[in-house]
């Protein structure tokens, strides 16, 4: 499903020094797996997630998703991949503030299908399934943090992706909400979606079938 081969990522910081965020990372994730990558802040977790999600070209190495070397293809291919095959969930939700819950969830489907009506129907069905049927027309600012994250998860799955990448999805949630959200990921995984979560919390990571540790840009226990 996903394979990273000797991926290295280097940046130039403000002092023009080269910083290595990821060093020779190799990782294989099978279809339908639920993987957590745990590491402290600055360990390169988010960088790894962005590279995996076709958002950031690595300095070295290859990334294969469903057998395709994604960085061997043009940017438009990767954009299509993110739209149709990958779902992102972020710590800060990244919902569009001027859209209501329904429109936020429907947005990727509108881009894919071109039909606002179909996208809205699907978004409504998802939101109801995730217990947000009473919040359809509420703006982001009117939702609780837990509800916002559930809306973000709905958005990530509306195009029925093969892979969900979640960057500290429970970072802003209380323990009760964390439990609820992680159960949602587990449920999505049971429905066949491959889930990769990066987190700094071992407790959150424990919801996954496989836990990997990343320190100083190096994957500790092998991929």
């Amino acid at each position, binding site marked *: 499903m996903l394979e990273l081969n000797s991926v290295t990522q280097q940046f130039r910081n403000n002092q023009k020094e080269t910083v290595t965020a990821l060093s020779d990372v190799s990782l294989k994730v099978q279809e339908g797996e639920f993987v957590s990558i745990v590491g402290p802040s600055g360990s390169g977790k988010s960088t790894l997630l962005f590279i995996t999600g076709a958002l950031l070209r690595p300095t070295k190495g290859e990334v294969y998703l469903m057998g395709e070397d994604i960085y061997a293809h043009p940017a438009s291919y990767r954009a299509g991949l993110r739209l149709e095959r990958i779902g992102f969930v972020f710590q800060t939700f990244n919902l*569009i503030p*001027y859209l209501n819950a329904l429109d936020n969830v429907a947005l990727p489907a*509108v881009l894919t299908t071109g039909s606002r009506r179909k996208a809205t129907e699907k978004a409504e069905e998802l939101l109801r399934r995730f217990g947000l049927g009473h919040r359809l027309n509420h703006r982001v600012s009117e939702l609780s943090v837990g509800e916002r994250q559930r809306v973000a998860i709905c958005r990530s799955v509306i195009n029925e992706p093969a892979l969900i990448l979640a960057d500290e999805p429970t970072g802003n949630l209380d323990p009760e909400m964390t439990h609820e959200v992680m159960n949602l990921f587990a449920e999505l995984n049971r429905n066949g979606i491959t889930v990769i979560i990066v987190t700094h919390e071992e407790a959150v990571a424990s919801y996954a079938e496989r836990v990997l540790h990343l320190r100083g840009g190096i994957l500790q226990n092998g991929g």
Partner: protein
Amino acid sequence: MNLQILPLLLKETRFRWVVHLLTVCLIAFVVSLLVTQGSLNRSAEDKVNELTHKLGRGMLVVPEDTDLQQFYLMRYGAETMPEDYSDRIESSHLGKHIQVIEPRLYGNLTVQGMDVILVGRRLQFPVSSDSRHELVVIGSGLARRLGLSSGDNLVVNNHKLRVFAIVDPPPKGYDMAIFAPLKTAQRILGTPGRINALHLSGCWCELDVPALAAKVESILPGTMAITVDGMAKAQIEIKSTMEQYSVIFWIAGGVLVTASIAFLLFYLIHKGRREIGLLLSIGMSPGRIVIKNIIISVATAVAGALAGYILSIPLMSQAGRMFMRVSLSPSAQVLPWLVAVITGAALLASFIPSWYISRLDPTKLLREE
């Protein structure tokens, strides 16, 4: 561009309506000034053409102190010249070039509370059986207002007049005029033996017209001779100067519109950095985001242009009354220029923000707090 994304644009516009409204207002203000200036230019040109057409190949001789601007606005002063100037020019060596010499005395009167123009000229009327009333011809507007018809009497400045005929339609601008024989007009205005205009016409195509005017002025001391040729030259110079200023004015307007749209786009990009990061992360291509921005900039510019054109209607009416003493409306001929300038400005304005978007790194945008 997927048209289904348009509701997203509308919602974004509604969410940040203040900055959109401010931009539209600024563009509307600039556009209204451009339209007003352009239309005033054109109206001034039309007015000159009309005047030139009126004068044709004639020459107008007036007392040298005459305020020409007021004269053309039909507000006549007290300046006069001797009536026999017409004979003097006829008997001069220039007489052979002049086919028609027409002495006139123009004046402003108030008749029963209404402003009336008196035109004294050489008129031939049948001899009146009633020697107490002098015969005149009046414009149809005056006849209507005073309820007069042919044969009716009226009193002007204690002079008893009888309407010999009504001119319908009257010459342009003479709707409220009384046309009287020169002597009658002189009596009414209290200027016996005086005139304030001498209309000359002839064929002087082969003559040096400015030199001819100078000769006329030397034969008739204390006068100035105005020719179409001189007026046309003066107007061409004025028009050329106005056009130079117009170009500067339009360039300045274009720059201002471009800057305001560019500012709007940069503001939207700045405020919506995380949204752009999100849109890129969910698979919207930078090209689509660029098109979205171009739509915003063109729509804002068009909205501003329309608002500006509408705003220019009262503005022009006011400016026309102030500068040209007529009520003007925006010229439709300005519209193609306006559309070209505004669309160009909008496209130009979105160029740098679009390039900026294409350089944005979504991973950095998504990490921003």
